[in-house]
């Protein structure tokens, strides 16, 4: 992967503000990735998302499928030896994209045509739309 190393302070600040997390607390041990249930579906590993944030490679962060695949399961945060709450960072990246682009990640028509439990529908809409 070719990295665009632009120290984009503004975006990083925004992500830290929304999440309340410090990305530099992470020392890249990989524990979060080791336990992530969605990792086999992801293009960039969870610990790599943080590394990209540390490096200021915001384009890569914004274009990854990973943040949308994260299921907010809290496994990474529960196991991180540095107390980094990666679920919050993933949400902050999603929110930043949703807010900036003013466009939903999922259109209502893309929701499966099945009778789903309400909690499935509402939580998907909460996570994937602004």
């Amino acid at each position, binding site marked *: 992967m070719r990295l665009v190393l632009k120290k984009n302070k503004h975006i990083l600040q925004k992500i830290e*503000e*929304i*999440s*309340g997390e410090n990305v530099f607390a992470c020392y890249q041990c990989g524990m979060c990735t080791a336990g992530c*249930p*969605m990792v*086999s*579906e992801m293009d960039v590993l969870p610990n790599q998302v943080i590394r990209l944030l540390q490096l200021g490679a915001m384009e890569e962060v914004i274009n990854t499928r990973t943040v949308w*695949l994260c*299921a*907010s*399961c*809290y*496994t990474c*945060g*529960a196991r991180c030896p540095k107390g980094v*709450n990666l*679920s*919050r960072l993933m*949400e*902050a990246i999603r*929110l930043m994209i949703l807010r900036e682009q003013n466009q939903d990640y*999922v259109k209502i028509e*893309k*929701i*499966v045509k*099945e*009778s*789903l*439990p*309400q*909690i*499935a*529908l*509402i*939580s*998907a809409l*909460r*996570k*994937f739309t602004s």
Partner: protein
Amino acid sequence: MREDRSQKTENLIYFPGCTLKTTAKPLEDSALKVAEALGMEIKEMPQWYCCGTVYSLAQDDLIKQLASIRNLILVQTLGHNEIMTLCSMCYNTLAQSNLLVRKDEKKLEKINQFISEQPDYKREIEVKHFLTLLKKVGTEKIKEVVKNGLSGLRIACYYGCLLLRPKEVGIDNYEQPTILEELMESLGATPVYFPYQTECCGSYHTAIKPEIVARRVYHILENARENRAELVVTSCPLCYFNLKDRQKNIKKIYPDFKKIPVRYFTEIMSQALGV
């Protein structure tokens, strides 16, 4: 004084949430029957709002906390001090919002100012899940009312995420919980070793990418089967849907997959209690 306190902890009210009144009706029906058989008095809130189903992780957006806090204020106004849920997602959302305003006075103040049509939230409500109440009743008492023991039925107890994590709101150990196993054991069942019991099922991705959920659930159910489980129990209506209804999607990806029954833990309890 002491007695007063213990009485107060009985002062609980039930928050059903949207799903319990529709797709998860069997969870509500069976849980209420079980509670009655155990002499627990479960009153439903006369009015409630959807909690929002997933806790918002954004620190700068309090709007998404309002639904939870409004419910907690309703409980406070009714003069109760505990709110009980059956749904793991409602439990998690209410408990995390409660924790947020308990830790952050400024955020609470803002929220209180915004919710001007209701009294201020005083942060005194405790959020409880039905499983925690059953644990308090105790396995001894439950054993006494079992009518149809489960005679060693091999059960895999699936917790998923939101009953256990984040650990600040978890109802049991977040890596190796035992609360469901102990309960199933008291009914005469044999809980199996099940390392995938806390692995996420893919959650709300079921609404847009069912095949991702099918792949996750396949690994969870295969792990249960490898440990010779005959049945999987869960408490979350979304996990239930993913573990049960996505089996047809699993079949398409892994044709050799053999279906395995999935039930709410309360359905198994009501069967054992004969109610």
